């Protein structure tokens, strides 16, 4: 596996916080998420539904619907500049050009009222100084690259004339047409059937390697992570609980949640005798969460301190980080317990 630490850091997310105002209180969808993406690296964001994966990425692009959502803290440094502080105009220059996105549902993500050609050409011409004819040639070229048969003719079709898998290919072609530095893929295969899933993932992998594009891949499928990602961040209740190079994560999972996730992947080699493992309980409601490890009600290894304070981050080595009390020394736990007791008083 390639060592990406030597590459340039192109995206640095630091302490990102995105909150939603709801009638029930403030929903902390993303609460202090940090990670870095190197040039050409594929980073996986894994977690259950509702853990804040998508909101993290919408926040990076400043696409969180506001109101009710608001990014209240943190930094998203791209190319030395904080995206969260940019003007609308600077932001538009980043979106679709430097960082582009593909979404979960290809059936609704393309505009049904406009031809594929219109939608692709407008993207290319928005960010590149080319004539309409050149842009069209470029679009056809991209469609051929993603495996659309007869792209010269198909480009003048409307989205509803394509199947789901083909539409996702079109989305990928559109997203990569400006040679973006980062491709954010928000569960790109969830809405597709299994055979198509593999094709689409292969396509993303091949094209991003070709263009040296970094990928942030959001998924809840650990199989996808194992096949695609260089690095994995496991998210739970709006925070990253463990991040590590992929191989290390599968071999030595440190957080009990990660262990649970890996254990709940069906295995083909055990003869089907064992019952599939599942993590008991439900993810917590992230509205007005008290200071504690949000995973503790479902954790098999929980301790007293887990209910009183959020665990600090431990570094197993340079690349493997985990937020769990299991790796704290006794002294630290005692100090934290004392502190928690003081706060309560």
């Amino acid at each position, binding site marked *: 596996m390639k060592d990406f630490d030597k590459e340039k850091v192109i995206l640095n997310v630091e302490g990102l916080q995105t909150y939603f105002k709801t009638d029930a209180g403030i929903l902390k969808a993303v609460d202090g998420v940090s990670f870095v993406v190197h040039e050409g690296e594929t980073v996986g964001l894994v977690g259950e539904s509702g853990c804040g994966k998508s909101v993290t990425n919408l926040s990076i692009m400043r696409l969180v619907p506001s109101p009710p959502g608001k990014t209240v803290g943190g930094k998203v440094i791209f190319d030395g500049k904080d995206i969260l502080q940019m003007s609308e105009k600077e932001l538009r220059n980043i979106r679709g*050009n430097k960082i582009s996105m593909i979404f979960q549902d290809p059936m609704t993500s393309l505009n*049904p009222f406009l031809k594929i050609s219109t939608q692709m050409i407008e993207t290319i011409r*928005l960010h590149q100084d080319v004539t309409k004819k050149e842009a069209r040639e470029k679009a056809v070229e991209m469609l051929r690259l993603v495996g659309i048969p007869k792209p010269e003719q198909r480009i003048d079709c409307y989205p509803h004339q394509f199947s789901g898998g083909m539409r996702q290919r079109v*989305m990928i072609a559109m997203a990569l047409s400006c040679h973006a530095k980062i491709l954010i893929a928000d569960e790109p295969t969830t809405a597709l059937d299994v055979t198509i899933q593999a094709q689409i993932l292969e396509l993303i992998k091949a094209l991003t390697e070709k263009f040296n594009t970094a990928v942030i891949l959001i998924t809840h499928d650990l199989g996808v992570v194992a096949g695609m990602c260089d690095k994995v961040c496991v998210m739970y209740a709006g925070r990253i609980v463990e991040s590590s190079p992929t191989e290390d994560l599968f071999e030595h999972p440190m957080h009990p949640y990660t262990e649970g996730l890996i254990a709940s992947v069906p295995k083909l080699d055990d003869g089907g005798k064992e019952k599939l493992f599942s993590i008991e309980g439900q993810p917590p409601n992230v509205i007005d969460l008290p200071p504690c490890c949000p995973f503790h009600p479902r954790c098999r290894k929980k301790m007293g301190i887990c209910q009183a304070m959020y665990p600090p981050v431990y570094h197993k080595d340079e690349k493997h980080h985990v937020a769990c009390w299991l790796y704290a020394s006794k002294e630290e736990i005692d100090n934290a317990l004392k502190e928690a007791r003081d706060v309560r008083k």
Partner: protein
Amino acid sequence: MTKYIIKRLLGMIPTILIIITLSFFIVRIAPGGPFDGERVLTEAVRRNIEARYHFDEPLVKQYARYMFDVLRGDLGPSYKYKDHDVNYLIGNSLPNSIVLGSMAMAVALVFGISLGITAAVKQNTILDYFPMCLAALGLSVPLFVVAPLLQQIFSMQLHWFPTTGWFMTTGGGGWKTAVLPTIALSFAYYADIARLTRSSMLETLRSDYIRTAKAKGMKNSTIIFKHAMKGAMLPVVSYLGPAFAGILTGSIVVEQVFTIPGLGKFFVQSSFNRDYTLIVGVVIVYSIILVIMNFIVDIVYAQLDPRITYK
């Protein structure tokens, strides 16, 4: 597409024939007749009148006679306005109603769509609240209040426009006579269109493909007019068909207040008078307009939404 258009046009003929047949019989079910007054007619006079209008014949024969006349383009004599036949009455009033209705609809469309879009884009600001308040007023305040109020303010106090008259009749005054009735009539339609536009624009702006457009780095104005407009206009277009037919015949209040010789008066009065031929005549006009408008709406729909194809 051409095949579809021809098919639809041919399909209109039986629709209209059925409407004529139904209305011919339904109006005769209503108690009373065109010649029932307070004064009891003598037997001889009654017979004479009935013979003149063929009321003494069996109903089926009357129907056949009427249908034959209608197919020749003759809507028959009016039983109430004895100097004129139905063709003359409708022919004189329909153009006024069409002009008034079209102007009112144009005004309603321009303001309804532009303010509706502004309201959706600037949701929960003054630019949203003000047009929507206006729309709520337009929906809730009846026309017989709005119209005299406009006369009171703009005619009696400010003297900008005349109170009554209609520029298409001889000696009816200039273009100024058209302003107040147009505004009054367009008000309720503005309200509907603005609210429809706002809600469907809001829904469209929340859709996934708009998020895609934003993620591509498109400008807000491009997103609204190029990406969202077509989808947002669909409900408005389907509303326009029946609304346009309704605005032509439903302008009775405005016509009465501003003394405009329009079709709306006959629509209401003919029913009270049991003026059978005039009722059916107006119904025919109304249904032809409605059927044509619905046809146009379907065609426009297919132009807007590529997912709809007609064969």
